[in-house]
């Protein structure tokens, strides 16, 4: 597996951890107290394997006073309970130190609603399965005893079947009945109408047959029908809940605390949601702003890469505006909130996403299209069968029987399973390669893509500058420069440290925001920073540069570049060979975007694109009739991500972008062709499944209409078609290995 190649020291060994750098909020604002016990719900990101589970729970349980720590690996929800004076921030820090992203979990009442819905379906499925199995047991004896069994025995077995079927149908069928009833009242019909009709009619006819002592009763067929349909419903509900829990993560992102300065200069931790315009806020080093604000006091460098896509930090001082999502890299800042969290940039983007998602939800799934063709077909066939037999002189009873068997046999077991099973198999295949699919219909949209738009920073590149020509720099200079750089959070300093490797930090390093660092080494004043700071000649250098000088020595130059991830060029060639049109849409500077685009072989690129420009470009492409796939990681991509026909985000992406996309992948862009290929395969299989369901009907309908469907035939036909569709879906997996 490729993921194993570069094991991370921290976080999930599978390499999925997005270790967040921002110093998060004060968790004491989120503690719930009941009596002596305190509880905190955390949302842990990046934990995807058993090692993570035991590591996190073990570390939490080792904290003093902790009585319980339990994590749900599927959702990342972690509940911690303790007594005594344990600092809640220490709880969060413990998880963060292990290398996972952590935030206070957003409270949502709907989450329980989704959970309850899923449980209800699962229980209904269990009940239907139980009833189907037991009735089948009795039915087999009836079929087996054909011709030999006495009428009284047969009637007795039918009666027992009916007694099992009645409560099961009422309990398990109520989802279908209530849904059918609610659309019928509006004068419309959905898939649940023929289902309800078939079940109720078949049950009534069977009761009649039992009373009369007739040979055929269809109790087994109605319960089995419900059982198969509920499997499909349940799979669908589970996929939807997974998508929903991803949306909850977005809410958790805003669930932070802020250090607010009161009038008398006291600092209080309050929830971000409580901040109103005009509040004075303190932004510590490493902290991410949660609201837009104007800086009142202090000067520091600000990392806005997630807001604008600009890969280099900018200097912010009193009077300048800071957008929500920016990270303070240097000295503490005091600012005044321009708006509450509701009206900040982050929420603006969230609103943009909502608009996009609404449009996306208007997308008509192939299953829905199939159903809209199917429902009238089933009704018409059954009605025609009834009328036909009546006109041919059969009795009303017989004609009803034929119509009911037609309804049962054409009822859409295979149709209900066709799409969900394919989606479950495909998302399982993606999951094993480190791709998390967030919605079922995403596969469908991904399979229709013809145009791919990449963000640059963090998507095509690692989002971190890299020191170039390390070998040509004298080793002692590099060591000295790195000893200064270790004191700073600036991305260029970090890149320099990364290139130099481990070492010590110089004493008393002073940082001058926007200029550079200064310290005394061996009695000489050494400086690392801009050309102005080090007295280096100004030149028209392209790209980010650092200068280093010690005493009177001539300044040495360090060049940096945000390079493309390994293998990106090959990925681009693969995609182009498959006929996709590619383009780069970045908020970064022109020369940086041009260089990376040239490196990876994409000819069309746009630089300095603001979030609004990105959205506009996506709109334009849509208007040209393209189905666009957007791949991006930043806050500035979120709007575009939600507007695209389908969207992908890398695992290192900002939470909001992960929420806005259809799937999150770990690793580099080489996952994109794999995802697209799997989506296409899943879509092909789904189409085949619908085809199989149609063929099944072509065969079954004439048999039913001509009155040859016995309960045995119905049972075989229904289970066979469901089985064939399920087995066919498994080919998605098998095909991948060859």
């Amino acid at each position, binding site marked *: 597996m490729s993921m194993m190649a570069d094991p991370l020291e921290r976080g999930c060994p599978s390499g999925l951890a997005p270790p967040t750098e921002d110093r998060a909020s004060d968790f004491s604002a989120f503690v719930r107290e009941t009596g002596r016990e305190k509880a905190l719900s955390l949302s842990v990101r990046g934990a*995807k*394997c*058993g090692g993570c*589970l*035991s590591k996190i729970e073990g570390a939490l349980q080792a904290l003093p006073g902790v009585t319980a720590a339990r*994590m*749900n*690996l*599927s*959702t990342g929800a972690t509940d911690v309970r303790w007594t005594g004076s344990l600092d809640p921030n220490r709880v969060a820090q413990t998880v963060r130190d292990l290398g996972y992203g952590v935030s206070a979990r957003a409270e949502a009442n709907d989450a329980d609603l989704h*959970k309850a819905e899923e*449980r209800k379906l*699962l*229980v209904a499925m*269990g*009940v239907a399965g*139980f009833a189907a*199995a*037991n009735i089948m*047991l*009795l039915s087999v004896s009836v079929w087996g005893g054909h011709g030999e069994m006495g009428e009284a*025995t047969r009637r007795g077995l039918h009666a*027992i079947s009916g007694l*099992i079927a009645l409560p099961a149908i009422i309990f398990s069928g109520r989802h279908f009945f209530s849904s059918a009833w609610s659309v019928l009242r509006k004068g419309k019909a959905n898939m649940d109408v023929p289902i309800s009709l078939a079940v109720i009619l078949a049950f009534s006819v069977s009761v009649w047959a039992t009373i009369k002592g007739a040979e055929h009763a269809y109790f087994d067929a109605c319960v089995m029908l419900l059982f198969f349909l509920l499997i499909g419903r349940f799979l669908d509900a589970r996929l939807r809940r997974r998508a929903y829990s991803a949306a909850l993560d977005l809410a958790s992102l805003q669930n932070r605390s802020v250090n607010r300065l009161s009038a008398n200069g006291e600092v209080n931790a309050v929830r971000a949601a409580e901040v109103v315009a005009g509040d004075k806020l303190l932004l510590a080093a490493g902290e991410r702003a949660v609201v837009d604000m104007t800086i009142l006091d202090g000067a520091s460098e600000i990392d806005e890469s997630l807001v604008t896509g600009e890969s280099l930090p900018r200097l912010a001082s009193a009077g300048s505006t800071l957008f929500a999502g920016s990270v303070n890299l240097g000295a503490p800042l005091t600012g005044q909130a321009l708006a509450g969290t509701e009206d900040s940039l982050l929420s603006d983007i969230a609103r943009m996403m909502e608009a996009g998602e609404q449009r996306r939800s208007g997308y008509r799934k192939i299953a829905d299209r199939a159903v809209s063709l199917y429902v009238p077909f089933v009704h018409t066939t059954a009605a025609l069968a009834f009328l036909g037999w009546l006109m041919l002189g059969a009795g009303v009873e017989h004609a009803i029987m034929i119509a009911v068997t037609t309804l049962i046999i054409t009822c859409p077991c295979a149709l209900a399973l066709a799409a969900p099973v394919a989606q479950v198999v495909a998302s399982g295949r993606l999951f094993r390669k480190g791709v998390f699919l967030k919605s079922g219909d995403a596969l469908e949209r991904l399979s229709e893509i013809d145009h791919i738009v990449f963000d640059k920073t963090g998507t095509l590149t690692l989002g971190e500058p890299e020191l170039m020509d390390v070998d040509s720099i004298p080793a002692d200079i590099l060591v000295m420069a790195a000893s200064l750089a270790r004191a700073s959070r600036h991305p260029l300093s970090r890149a320099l440290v990364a290139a130099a490797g481990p070492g010590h930090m110089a004493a008393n390093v002073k940082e001058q925001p926007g200029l550079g660092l200064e310290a005394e080494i061996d009695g000489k004043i050494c400086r690392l920073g801009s050309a102005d700071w080090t007295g280096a000649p100004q030149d028209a250098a392209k790209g980010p540069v650092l200068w280093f000088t010690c005493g009177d020595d001539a300044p040495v130059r360090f060049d940096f570049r945000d390079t493309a991830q390994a293998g990106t060029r090959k990925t681009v060639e693969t995609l182009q060979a498959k006929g996709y049109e590619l383009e780069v849409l970045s908020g970064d500077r022109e020369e940086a975007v041009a260089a990376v685009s040239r490196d990876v072989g994409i000819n069309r690129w746009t630089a300095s694109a603001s979030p609004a420009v990105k959205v506009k470009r996506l709109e334009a492409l849509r208007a040209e009739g393209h189905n666009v796939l957007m791949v991006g990681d930043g806050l500035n991509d979120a709007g575009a991500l939600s507007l695209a026909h389908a969207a992908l985000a890398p695992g290192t992406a900002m939470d909001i972008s992960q929420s806005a996309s259809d799937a999150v992948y770990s690793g580099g862009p080489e996952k994109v062709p794999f995802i697209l290929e799997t989506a296409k395969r899943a879509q092909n299989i789904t189409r085949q499944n619908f085809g199989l369901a149609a063929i099944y009907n072509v065969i079954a309908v004439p048999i039913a209409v001509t009155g040859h469907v016995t309960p045995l035939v119905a049972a075989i036909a229904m289970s066979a078609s469901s089985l064939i569709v399920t087995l066919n879906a498994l080919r998605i997996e098998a095909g991948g290995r060859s």
Partner: protein
Amino acid sequence: MEIIIYLIPVALCLGAAGLAAFIWSVNSGQYEDLDGASYRILEDEDKPL
């Protein structure tokens, strides 16, 4: 054949017991974290001596 008068109710009761166990397991949240549960069995709770 009178035996089926006893056997059928017995079979149904056994099945119903299984169903009741299933419903209990769903409602007590045992299907909430399918990924985690499979790893938990590998966890050593005992400390080495």
